[in-house]
């Protein structure tokens, strides 16, 4: 896979704050990359820097091998060939749908292109409507069509689903993936919603405080988060303290093998679906709460030593409050820092 967008060591600071702090990101071409992070982490700034609306303080940005931004130079947005879908859609209110979609298209095949793009997003026959006559989902499609119509190499989407209600959001997510992949365009989407990022992205880049802390496929970042923070941000995670002892760490709910030297302290991260309780007569704890969702259920277990843990079980297993259980863990991640690990 070739790299379509590359941000290298990019810093953006203004008014005394640093929005991007030595930010590195490589976006593979033809895929949908979701940049996810809590609000205020700089993800919109990153998007605006790629589009050219935000000048950068240091670093470089490359689009399809062309250097578009450095410390001193900044290719203006109109010459970057980047399509952008804005959070509130930013449709021009005074011109029709067809004129909005055709706004960035030049040349003889303009009318034809507008028609084809509208068909692609499922809005045939909407040419003469005005933005205020459309529903939120339709406005979203027009915004996407407008960004795609000039045939950009890259499409950027800023929180594209935040203005839609829940059912529309799910439908648009699937539509977006279909459209992006059928056009073959490189897409970058930013969102603060980790479930949305995992669902929609071919690749995920997790941001915190102005930098990318991890990137990879959804499975990689979810199952192998690089830090407890990433683990918690992307899903539910229990972080248990432990000390290495004879090549293993006893977490209280299971023993995790480790290469750390004896006496090194570590944090062990376990996701609820990695916890497997079995109902037994005595056991190490008991079930104190249960939330049943249908397809699955969350079971809260209080261990006899006072620790509380959650387990996510298939909906088909029936458990009752007060039942005693033994607990095993299928998977875990051990985090350590250099100062506490001792010799490896």
């Amino acid at each position: 896979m070739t790299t379509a967008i590359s941000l290298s060591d990019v810093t953006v600071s203004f008014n005394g704050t640093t929005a991007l702090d030595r930010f590195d990101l490589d976006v593979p071409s033809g895929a949908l990359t979701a940049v996810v992070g809590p609000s205020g982490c700089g993800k919109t700034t990153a998007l605006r820097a790629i589009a050219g609306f935000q000048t950068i303080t240091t670093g470089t940005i490359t689009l399809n091998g062309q250097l578009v931004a450095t410390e001193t130079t900044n290719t203006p947005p109109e010459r970057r060939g980047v399509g952008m879908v804005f959070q509130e859609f930013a449709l021009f209110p005074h011109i029709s749908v067809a004129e909005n979609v055709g706004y960035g298209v030049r040349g003889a095949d303009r009318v034809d292109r507008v028609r084809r793009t509208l068909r692609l997003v499922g809005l045939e026959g909407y040419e003469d409507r005005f933005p205020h006559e459309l529903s939120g989902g339709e406005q979203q499609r027009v915004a996407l069509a407008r960004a795609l119509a000039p045939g950009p190499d890259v499409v950027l989407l800023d929180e594209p689903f935040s203005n839609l209600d829940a059912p529309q959001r799910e439908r648009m997510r699937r539509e977006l993936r279909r459209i992006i992949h059928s056009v073959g365009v490189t897409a970058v989407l930013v969102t603060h919603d980790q479930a949305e990022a995992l669902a929609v992205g071919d690749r995920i880049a997790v941001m915190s405080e102005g930098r990318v802390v991890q990137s990879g496929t959804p499975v990689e970042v979810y199952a192998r988060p690089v830090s407890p923070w990433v683990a918690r941000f992307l899903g539910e995670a229990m972080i248990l303290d432990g000390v290495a002892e004879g090549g293993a760490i006893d977490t209280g709910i299971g023993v995790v093998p480790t290469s750390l030297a004896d006496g090194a302290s570590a944090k062990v991260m376990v996701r609820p679906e990695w916890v497997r309780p079995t109902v037994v007569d005595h056991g190490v704890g008991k079930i104190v709460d249960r939330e049943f969702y249908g397809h699955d259920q969350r079971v809260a277990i209080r261990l006899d030593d006072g620790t509380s843990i959650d387990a996510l079980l298939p909906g088909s297993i029936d458990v009752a409050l007060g039942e005693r259980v033994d607990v095993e863990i299928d998977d875990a991640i051990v985090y350590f820092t250099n100062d506490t690990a001792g010799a490896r």
Partner: protein
Amino acid sequence: MTEPGSIVEIEIPAGVPAAPPGSTEQRRSHGPWYLWVISLLIVCVIAVPVTSLALRLLDATDAAWQSLLSWQTVRLMVRTLVFTALVTASATAVGVSGAWLLARTDLRFRRAWGVAFALPLVIPSYVIALVLISASGPRGLVADITGVDLPHLVGFPGAWLALTLSTYPYVFLITAAALQRVDPALEEAARGLGASPARVFRTVVLPQLRPAMGAGALLAALYTLSDFGAVSLMRFDVFTRVIYAQYSGRIDRSPAIVLSIVLVAAALIVIWAEQRTRGDGTLFSRKPARPPSVYRLTPWQRAAGTTFLAATVAAGLVLPVAVLSAWLLRGLTSGIDVTIPFDAIAGSLTGASLAAIVAVAASVPIVVLAVRYPTGASNALERAVYVMFSLPHITVAIAVVAFTVRYARPVYQSLLVLVLVYAAMFLAQATGPAKASLLQIDPALDDASRGLGRSHLATMARITVPLMSKGLLAGGLLVFVTALKELPATLLLRPSGFTTLAVRIWSSADELLYTQAAASALVLIAVSVVPVYYLSIKPKDVVGV
């Protein structure tokens, strides 16, 4: 999930620096160079009167400097500022009361009242002053008709009344528009928490109105500071009248120049005071989901409200029109030959419409820079426009005459200079609504256009300016109406053979040709009615949605 036993171990690098959370605010940039080039040209035009004054200040005599520090000047300064404050306070009280009555109560015929209440805007303050003088007093028109002897309205009370009637419509128009966008949910929330209607008004409505009231009060205060006609007719000594006396009566004109500079300082004080009370006026106000709720008046309140509106409209609109009509009729019945002043109509329309076009064109780069690229420089640019608006027209005219005679002889007393001076003096009236309309436009629209391959200039032409069109129209109409009434600068700067309705009124009144003055004044009012009617029914366009 990986197989059990293949546990992943990850080292967290020590000492990861924590960056402060970033904001999504755009880094300050200065904006495209051509906007600055145009803006600097505008500043050069604006700077002519100011530098001309400053240059003359350099060769001011010692006597002039001594007069600056005299008790007389201090007294004049205090009197001018107190007078301005009083007029501003009364104009704000009248304007805000009228706006609230007409925007938020169930008073009847609110639309018609709204138009009538805004219409005094079309009557020049010197015409109101003239009418008040002739109507009041033991032998005035009111005494003639009713037999009741009124005291003579001259000096301070007369000037106060005339200028309050001339300036409250500015406060009214701006506040009425702001009242329409007050979110009813906030008021309902306050009522639900047990607040009385009075407390809701004080704690919820008034704070939301503050920016609009401040803007309206600023216009009223600057108008009052620079008014010359009304205070002169009322023989009330404030800066403008004294400057004129110093200028026309003396060989050494530098005292007049020195006093003009003090007047500029007074204007800066007013602008500073408005900024201090306003806080951040550039809030992106969202359109509320519902129209504001209507307050039901008790019969007593209804009667009081109607009386208030009727009294204001009677004094500001009915009385002037009635007196002018009476003069005209008296003249016609006594066989005086009244001609329709075609040349003056043509002159007024030409000058005022060209001024409006130039001012609107100039307002676009200024507000785009001020709103989209807020830097110290672009704010200073916007302030310069207000300073220009606050200069007394007589001072500007004197300065421009001096400048053109010395440095630009070919354009001395040309239509070009007159139009440029109009546009420069009234630019603030165009930038106000233009700024309000631009603040309503989501900056993402500009970004969307840029991202679709259009240059900044093309984006302005196809997106920004079309979306600002209502604000630009409102600003253009305000400039048009104001330029139509302008007197002192027109008197001094008009080309020979060029005349306007305002000049015709002034010279006719001077020669006691009241019939001819009345005819011109009525035509002037009639011409202004259409734009002011439009502005009064579309107040949103003046100050945004």
